[in-house]
């Protein structure tokens, strides 16, 4: 059963003239509980695509269905995390994590009545990502990696069935990244949810995902769908196995190809 159903999606910023089009005919189906990654050259429209899924943007053409319902505006069924884990500096980490519950219309009144219970839930989540007891700290007292963990907690506190991650680990060092891959997998063992993740790190994409999509240079289209079927839980050393390496190699070739094409014919209509 698919969670995300997208057909004929087209979007242009400000209009549908050739040079304004960012996404040009995207069809995508993602199953419930699937971990999908999107890779592609910079500026091809990945972040735009994520905004469409969260209901922050509406496409000019095509339709987006989440859970068999058309996306017409923001709904609280998604959790989001970005490359820089922005937190409100005047709130403690715990209060930052609870923010979605506080403002989402679906949970707002419930949150006021059962604060203690939700606080405990947030603390459990902090423990799950390896931040036990850090809830009372302020964001600036955390390291970059810790902030990113907390931002994952914030994205998941309202238990959304779909998690949208836009280069969440892009600013982290290799070791912290590996720890967070592990954290993400642990979280998925606790509760199944669908993940759609944008990343520039092909190893990360192959290691974490069931499916990797390659997007073409702008205007964005899904060029390739690559299934990754290594068994889970996956060991970190899997990265050095030939099957894994060839996946990464293939993806890199696809991206290189579409980038080269974009350079040869710069922005189809821009010169007109």
């Amino acid at each position: 059963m698919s969670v995300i159903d997208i057909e004929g999606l087209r979007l242009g910023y400000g209009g549908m003239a050739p040079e304004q089009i960012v996404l040009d005919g995207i069809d995508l189906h993602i199953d419930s509980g699937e971990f999908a990654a999107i890779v592609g050259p910079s500026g091809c429209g990945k972040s735009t695509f994520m905004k469409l899924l969260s209901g922050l943007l509406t496409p000019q053409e095509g339709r987006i269905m989440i859970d068999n319902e058309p996306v017409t505006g923001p709904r609280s069924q998604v959790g989001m995390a970005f490359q820089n884990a922005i937190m409100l500096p005047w709130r403690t980490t715990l209060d930052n994590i609870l923010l979605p519950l506080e403002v989402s219309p679906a949970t707002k009144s419930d949150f006021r009545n059962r604060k203690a219970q939700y606080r405990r839930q947030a603390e459990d989540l902090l423990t799950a990502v390896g931040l036990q007891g850090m809830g009372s700290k302020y964001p600036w007292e955390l390291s970059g990696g810790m902030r990113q963990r907390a931002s994952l907690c914030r994205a998941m506190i309202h238990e959304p069935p779909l998690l949208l991650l836009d280069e969440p680990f892009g600013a982290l060092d290799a070791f912290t990244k590996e720890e967070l891959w592990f954290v993400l997998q642990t979280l998925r063992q606790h509760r199944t949810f669908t993940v759609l993740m944008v990343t520039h790190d092909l190893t990360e994409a192959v290691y974490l995902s069931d499916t990797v999509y390659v997007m073409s240079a702008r205007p964005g289209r899904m060029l390739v769908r690559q299934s990754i079927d290594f068994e889970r839980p996956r060991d970190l050393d899997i990265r050095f196995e030939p099957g894994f390496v060839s996946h990464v190699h293939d993806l890199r070739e696809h991206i290189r190809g579409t980038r080269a094409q974009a350079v040869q014919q710069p922005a189809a209509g821009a010169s007109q």
Partner: protein
Amino acid sequence: MTATTQSTPASQTRRPSRLRHWLGWFRREEAMSFWIIIGFFVVWEAACHLFALPVYFLPPPSVIAQAAVEFQRALVINSIQTLWTTMAGFGFAVVFGLVLGVAVGGSRRLYRGLYPLMVGFNSVPKVALVPILVLWFGIGSVPAIITAFLISFFPIVVNVATGLATTEPEMDDILRALGASKLDRLLKVGLPGAMPHFFGSLKVAITLAFVGSVVSETVAANSGLGHMMLMAQANFEVPLVFAGLLALAIEGVLMYALFVIIEKRMTGWAFRAQSAQQ
């Protein structure tokens, strides 16, 4: 027995260390402003004697102090008058500035619509408005309060609006994607985030408010420091004019310091967050 013998050396060692502590303070960075102020008055005093400046041209601080003691009653009464008109005007400016700042910062339409008018309004010299205010309200405290208000609300509006506009776009995305209402986004993220800007602007606004009330007092009042200085000047009591200026400066510094403390108290997180990032 043993207890007393032990306590004596302890108190002996404490006394010189406390003295050194006090002496040490005068060498610290915080004491710099103290020394500079002392130096400023010493140079002033010396210059007056060295160049034999007549008292009606530039009185030395010692003569000003004498005048301040002599006219202490008038100084205190007029200082209080100026302080209250300033604070009243400033109080209105804070309320009005906050409301208008939120309106302008929260709505693009209002921002674009109101900005030219506000900038134009702010460009008008407030002294030019005083005669009109006198025409409407007569001579007294009201024109001073209104002038203080008019001159000090603009920086508050601009800072609140700027603070609201600089909300992190990604934070806003997260909240909007959750379906958060505009009011919630304002109350939970926008306003708290704008508080450092707001409290920072109060320091500027309070000093401007003093300028406003005193300007108005020199034109259209029968009390207040501005009025007193004008009278003293007419009577050639030049030391008293300077005593009035000093009283004004002291009031300004004290209020500024008060708002620095309030700013630290209310938005301490901003300072700590900043120093943590460095």
